[in-house]
């Protein structure tokens, strides 16, 4: 029983880290209706830039700020050269454009910073600690805390400020928002910048967890089912979905693995997403207006 609980909780904690990646999608999707496949390579780009700056002796916060500035510059460029020319095009066209973007991000980050694996030490211990009799990873607990505070900050920013109001207005009805004088481009840039910020945080945590290298861009594949289960529009939803996916995946790998085979976690999340989709086509907390038949 104790082992079961440990598996459950450890899975749930790593699920929060999937959610951290998925939040970046939600921010962009809500503001510009774009399903941004490049979020994963933005994480790679952010983490590689940060770690290389730090290795060259730049202090932590300066490196953090500089990386963030780069991501904001990228947000401007993306809005200007990709999203604006593609406005009014179908969601699938926009999605495909972000696939192209992810290629560009991957190429750029590896040209600029090379392909080596970098260690990243955030000063968080990764020794196991005992919580209520369960042996858990202190790193995962810290990462969960960071993700949790990020969610609170984002919820405040998008909920209580004028900025948040305009983000939501654009999400609710772009044409109406335009007609009352909201500048769509600005809102888009802000949303992509926020997503860049989330990518940086996610990149640091994932980088500290598994080393900063190319595979960071593949985390996006773990975030997709989380997003589908949680709904594309709800930050709270993806957190819950992340926990579900993380815990379910871990349990499946431990308890289903021996009977049906190793490596179940490669597809389990997608199977789960499919089941949820059949039951609730708009995701757990997604808006109900999404097209269904």
């Amino acid at each position, binding site marked *: 029983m104790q082992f079961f609980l440990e598996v459950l909780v450890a899975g749930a904690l790593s699920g929060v880290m999937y959610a951290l990646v998925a939040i970046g999608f939600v921010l962009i999707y809500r503001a510009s209706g774009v399903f941004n496949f490049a979020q994963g390579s933005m994480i790679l780009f952010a983490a590689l830039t940060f770690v290389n700056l730090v290795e060259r002796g730049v202090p932590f916060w300066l490196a953090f700020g500089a990386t963030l500035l780069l991501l904001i510059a990228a947000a401007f460029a993306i809005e200007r050269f990709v999203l604006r020319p593609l406005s009014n095009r179908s969601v699938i066209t926009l999605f495909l454009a972000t*696939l192209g973007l992810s290629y560009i991000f991957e*190429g750029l980050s590896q040209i600029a910073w090379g392909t080596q694996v970098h260690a990243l030490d955030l000063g968080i211990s990764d020794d196991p600690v005992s919580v209520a009799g369960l042996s858990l990873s202190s790193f995962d607990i810290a990462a969960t805390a960071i993700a949790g505070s990020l969610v609170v900050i984002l919820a405040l920013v998008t909920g209580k400020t004028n900025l948040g109001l305009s983000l939501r207005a654009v999400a609710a009805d772009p044409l109406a928002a335009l007609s009352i004088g909201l500048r769509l481009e600005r809102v888009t840039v802000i949303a992509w910048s926020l997503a860049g910020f989330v990518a940086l945080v996610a990149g640091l945590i994932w980088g500290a967890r598994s080393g900063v290298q190319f595979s960071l861009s593949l985390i996006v594949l773990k975030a997709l089912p989380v997003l589908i289960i949680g709904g594309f529009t709800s930050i709270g939803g993806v957190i819950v979905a992340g926990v579900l996916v993380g815990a379910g995946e871990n349990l499946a790998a431990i308890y289903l693995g021996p009977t049906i085979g190793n490596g179940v976690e*490669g597809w389990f999340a997608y199977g789960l997403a499919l089941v949820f989709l059949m039951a609730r086509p708009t995701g757990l907390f997604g808006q109900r207006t999404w097209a269904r038949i």
Partner: protein
Amino acid sequence: MASLPAPISVAPSEPPRAGAIVLPVAIVAAAIVPFAIGSDYLFGAVLVPILILSLAGLGLNVLTGYAGQLSLGSAAFMAIGAFATYNIHLRVPGFSLLPAIVAGGFVAAAFGVLFGLPSLRVKGFYLIASTLAAQFFVPWLLSQYGWFTNGSASGVITAPPLTLAGFDLDNPAGRYAYTLGIVAVLTVLVRNLIDSPTGRAWMAVRDMDLAAAALGIPLGRAKLLAFAVSSFLLGIAGSLWAFTYLGTVEPAGFDLDRSFQILFVIILGGLGSIRGNFLGAAFVVLLPVALSVIGGAIVGSTLDPALLENAQKIVFGALIIFFLVAEPDGLTKLLGHALRTRSSWIGLTKPRQLEQP
């Protein structure tokens, strides 16, 4: 999201008779020209993969370009086709390779219907969950159970020698001829299918599904049929990939990157176009080769290969965005423009005289 655009925007489909002359001419040309100038490299590493990717693009285009259902799992159906063919050829007595390839296509079609079932309930973006589930589940299944790979410890299967009616085709030119034959037959079949009521039902589902339903088109049946036909073509493409191109295959070879590659074939070539698949496939295969040759020629051998490879990635990404922005109807439209340069724009009503080479 208050209002959503139509699920997908596509080129106005090619006028039905446009290819009536072009297609046979192209097939004849493809059957003659390469043998006059061909080298092993041209056959083995350029033409055969272009043909196979064209067929795969054709399969995805049926589903995405014509029936409007987005799929990110094309490679999974290729894998099913390849491994079904392998096992049928291996285990069922009396099946030579060609019937086994066709049978493999039918197995892939069955799986296509299975993974297409969610399309009856969800559509648009959420449907990618189903095809992605296929994408991750199928290679796992194939590598997990030794039976599929006939007990090969590492999950890699080896193709049987390629023969047809007693002829030994186990050389680059032979492989090309074999591939060309299959691809040509299937292309003609698909073209006629698109031109039939079935094809028109698909396009109706794509362009306005509610109206299509109101017109009495059975939506569910049309979608599942599109999944079946698409997967059948992808399955055969997968078999050819394994047996006439690589000569060997592992489940991991049919990964998400392959699915993206096929998606790029149809984006760059043109959604809802038959000719576009061939243009797109040629582009996808030749661009990396061309870039590395040009890059090497400009900078010489001192060029860092990693730099070259990453530059290639950037160029690829930028081109995809460029095409989506500037020419969403793809290379096929560009080619159309090029062919029309001297005549004025007449529109699509008299395509026959315009499309002649």
